[in-house]
C-alpha cells in the first residue's frame, strides 16, 4: 500500500496535546513555533497545517 499522506512532524507550544510516532517539536512561544514550522516545511517539502493556535503539523501530500 502506498501512503498518500503522512504527518512528518508536529510543532506545538502545548506538549500535552501531542503524542505519537512523528517527531514532536516543543516550542516556548507562538513565534518560535511558526519559525520552526516554516523551517520544517521547507526542509521536509511538506505543508504546515494549523490545527489550532498551539499546534502545527507538517504533512507530506
Amino acid at each position, binding site marked *: 500500500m502506498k501512503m498518500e499522506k503522512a504527518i512528518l512532524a508536529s510543532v506545538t507550544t502545548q506538549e500535552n496535546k501531542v503524542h505519537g510516532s512523528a517527531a514532536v517539536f516543543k516550542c516556548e512561544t507562538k513565534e518560535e513555533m*511558526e519559525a520552526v514550522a516554516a523551517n520544517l516545511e521547507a526542509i521536509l*517539502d511538506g*505543508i504546515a*497545517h494549523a490545527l489550532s493556535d498551539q499546534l502545527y*503539523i507538517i504533512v507530506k501530500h
Partner: protein
Amino acid sequence: MNEYTYPIVFGIVVGTALRVFMLRTDYRQYPTYLHGKIIHLSLGFIAAALGTIAIPSIMEKEFTAVTFLTLAASQFREVRNMERNTLTEMDAYELVPRGNTYIEGIAVAFESRNYLVIFTSFIVTLCYLAFNIWVAIGSAVVCFLLSKVLMSGSKLFDIVTVEHSELSFDGAGLYVDNIYIMNIGLPERQEEIKKYGMGFILTPREFSVRSTIANLGQRQAILHDVSVTMGVFRDSGTPALVPLIKRDLNDGRIGVFILPQEKDPQRAKKIIEHVPVLENAIQMPSKNR
C-alpha cells in the same frame, strides 16, 4: 507518368497540407520541437499517400490494396501511444502537471488528425478521378473547413460561468467564496497567498455539466492552462503553494484557486473560459432514459 499521376500528387499534397494546417503550436506548447514536427509531418504524408492510393487501387480492381488501410490504422494507433508516452514522461517535470485526462485528449487528437488526412486525400483523389480538378479543389476546401470544425471542441464558457472571487482565510482555512480549499498554517504563506493568489468560481450552466467540471482531469487541465499562460508562483518543494480546485458539494460549483506570476483577474478569467472541455470528461446524464 500515367493517368493517375496528377490525382495522386494532388491528393498527397492536399492531405499533407491539411496536416500542416492542423499542426499548430499554441499555448499548449506542443509540439515545439522541430523534430516533433517532422515526425508528424512525415506521418501526415504517409497518411495522405495511403488515402490517395486507395482510389486508383479500387479503379484498377486491386481490391486487396485497400487492406493497407488497416495497416495504417494500427500504425496511427502507435502515434497515440507515442504521444501519450512522451507527454506522460514530461508531465512529471511540470510544476503544474497536465494530468492524464488532458494527455489522453491530446494523444487522441493526434491520432484522429491522421485519419482526417486519410479521408481528405481519399475524397479529393476520388473527386479528381471521378470528375475533374475543380471539383477536387472544391472538395479540398470543404474538407479543410470540416477539419477545422471537427478539430475545435467546446470551451469552458460554453458550459459554465466564470466569476472572480476574493480569497479569504477563516483561521488557517483558505476559502474561495464559501468553498474550502486547504489549510495554510503559516502566516507568511497566508500573506503570499493573499498577495499572489486569485480565486474564481465556476458555476455550471446546467445540471449535466456538473459531473464534467467535477472531473479531476478537467480540473487539472484548468490549472495547467492557467499556469502555463500566466506563470505560476511556486517552486519544487513548496506544496503549500500549489494551485487547487475544490468543489461545492451542495450545488456543483467549483472553486479555482490559482497562484499566477502576474495578478490580472480579467486575463485569468478569459483563460479559464477558453480552457478546452476535455472529451474524456464529458458525461451526459440527461441522455439517460
